[in-house]
């Protein structure tokens, strides 16, 4: 039963084209190791350098967004022993790479995040590049540890507009996910 169960779980992931998927508490160490494995895997398959860089960059920004902004955390930020929970999934479909991240966000943060992503969805490549440059020159916003520019970086590397969605969990939180195709 055990093998059957996990074989079907693995089969389901394979069917979706998933190269790897991480769910749980994300840390800088996990980010580094997963990123390293991702680059090795793509290099072994002779993926072109530009694509490897784009996938890696989107992966790093998404994982760091989870570390910074997931509403589901254990520990204490003041003692730098905090872990944030979320999910990162990387795979291929229709001969293209996709990267999905998901985490819990506070309902109070949802409108701002939605606005930022909707704004990026409407922009073409040149507008995204100009917006990136504008934000690069700006002093960091209060409360934001650089989220805006991280999202613009993701949009800049994507080959089509970012897809995202929110699913309400309860009065205080949403399940947020974002899909980026390279």
């Amino acid at each position, binding site marked *: 039963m055990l093998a059957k169960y996990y074989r079907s779980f693995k089969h389901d992931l394979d069917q979706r084209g998933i190269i790897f998927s991480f769910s749980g508490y994300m840390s800088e160490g996990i980010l*580094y190791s997963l990123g390293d494995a991702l680059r090795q895997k793509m290099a072994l398959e002779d993926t072109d350098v*530009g694509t490897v860089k784009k996938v890696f*960059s989107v992966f790093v920004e998404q994982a*760091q967004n989870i570390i910074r902004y997931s509403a589901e955390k254990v520990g204490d930020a003041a003692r730098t022993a905090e872990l944030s929970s979320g999910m990162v999934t990387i795979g291929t479909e229709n001969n293209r790479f996709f990267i999905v991240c998901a985490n819990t966000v506070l309902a109070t943060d949802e409108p701002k995040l939605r606005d930022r992503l909707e704004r990026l969805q409407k922009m073409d490549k040149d507008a995204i590049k100009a917006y990136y440059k504008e934000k690069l*020159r700006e002093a960091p916003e209060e409360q934001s540890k650089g989220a805006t520019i991280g999202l613009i*970086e993701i949009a800049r590397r994507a080959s089509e507009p970012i897809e995202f969605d929110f699913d309400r969990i309860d009065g205080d939180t949403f399940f947020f996910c974002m899909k980026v195709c390279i």
Partner: protein
Amino acid sequence: MDTLKIAATERSPEVEFNFKQGLLSLRGESYPEDASAVFGPIFEALEKFLATLDGREIRVDFDLTYFNSSSAKALMNMFQMLDRAGGAGARIAVSWFYSPDDDTMKEFGEDFSEDLEHVSFSLVAVETAS
């Protein structure tokens, strides 16, 4: 000032600022979650050094293969510091190295150089062994 030498880590670049010779370089990758922790000491040393320059000639090499968005902001800060020092009379030559097949790093070099008014900037394509 003594040379500032910081070894690269898995997610931060190698720093070698030889103040005596006026040769400063940043090499490798930069994607720490907290960019200010990595770049804070670099900025502090650079600011002190730039204040001593007057009309001296210095060279700054950027040989980076990848950096995240918060490092990009820190690098922009660094370019602004260099440009200010150039405006105050220092002769600063910045080289931005990139691999010929790496459009992203080339584009970043172009982005950073756009605002520079008092610093000479060269984009240098270098074939790497890898």
